[in-house]
């Protein structure tokens, strides 16, 4: 009787650990295909055949529709270039050289990938509409307060992430490493 009890206990504990592992694996952007460059993370393999089971489970959980490898590549940032989590109470400057792509867009979203409503109706920029410096570089300000130039308003209290999509990028899917120098930096300014 004690032996059966031990078996059941072992099975239960095992099942709990297994489910815990699964939940942890799907929560922390784990996946064999994840590639990071500075604050940005992308899943290039999701754009073609041969998506790994973890990525497939993660896509099923989030409901995301990834871009095809010929279409482009999407990069997500949940932290700034200093590694600190993005906070709606802080101002940020996203700047850098022009990413190697035919077009790119930068969008502010909730961590679940929803767009944030704001009075100006602007949640991002496309590469065509931003104002640039003479050398072609750009800077986009993220702030709760209005800023001159390229400005994406942040919501008062809602946490946010950044989604940078490079359409028809020269980053090919076979690349397993990206040079962070080719992607914009996210610099934190003042926090209120």
């Amino acid at each position, binding site marked *: 009787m004690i032996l059966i009890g*031990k078996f059941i206990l*072992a*099975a239960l*504990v*095992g*099942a709990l*650990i*297994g*489910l815990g*592992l*699964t939940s942890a*694996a*799907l929560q922390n952007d784990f996946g064999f295909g994840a590639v990071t460059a500075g604050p940005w993370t992308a899943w290039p393999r999701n*754009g*073609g*055949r041969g*998506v790994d*089971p*973890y990525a*497939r*489970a993660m*896509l*099923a*959980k*989030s*409901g*995301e*529709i*990834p*871009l*095809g*490898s*010929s*279409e*482009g590549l*999407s990069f*997500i940032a949940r932290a700034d270039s200093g590694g600190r989590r993005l906070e709606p109470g802080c101002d940020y400057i996203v700047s850098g050289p022009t990413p190697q792509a*035919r*077009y790119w*867009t930068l*969008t502010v*979203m909730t961590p*679940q*990938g*929803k*767009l*944030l*409503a*704001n009075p100006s109706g602007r*949640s*991002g920029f*496309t*590469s*065509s*509409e931003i104002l640039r410096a003479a050398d072609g570089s750009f800077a986009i300000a993220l702030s709760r307060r209005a800023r001159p130039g390229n400005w994406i308003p942040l919501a008062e209290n809602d946490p946010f992430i950044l*989604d940078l*999509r490079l*359409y*028809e990028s020269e980053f090919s899917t076979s690349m397993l490493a990206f040079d962070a120098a080719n992607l914009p930096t996210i610099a934190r300014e003042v926090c209120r």
Partner: protein
Amino acid sequence: MNRLDRFLAGLLWLLGVALVAVAVHLIAVFDLPRRLGNDPMSRLSVLAKPGEMSQLPLARPGAEWAPFSDPAVAQGVCLYDLTRAPVRVSGEVDADRMLTLSFRTPSGEIFYSMTDRAAQHGKIDVLLLTSEQLEALEADSEDDDEPAQELRLIAPAAKGFVLVNALAAFPSEAEESRQRVKAITCAPEAPLD
């Protein structure tokens, strides 16, 4: 029982727990996509008619059909079913405006993707078929000297969907980008004999 025996017995139990944990973990990961039941095909079938190009609503706060959608992109979808006949996806594209297509299985996995740059003479022409249909088609046209003008694409399953993305480089181009999605048609071919 001496200490070694106890130690070995404990180790065995731990091993058992670890095995169960790994098994449960693997089953959960593989089974999750099916269990969640919100695969893109079933979500899209609410928004689109099968066998034709349907416009999807623009991604706006509180009204996205999928998370991580780009608000600058107009989307259209064609839910195809190759059981009876191949499906042709074709249309004129504007050389300067970005338009992309992705061919997907019901779970949203991509088996082919392309952009307007792959268009020939300003036209996209893709014939989507099963491998049996391709064989029948090639047997039919063996005598023809002219090579096929269209891109023949074998779908891994009879059902799936084609997603069309048209980028509006400026917010004022939103309507125009919807028109470019509309310019791509998707229709079943006449059934092969």
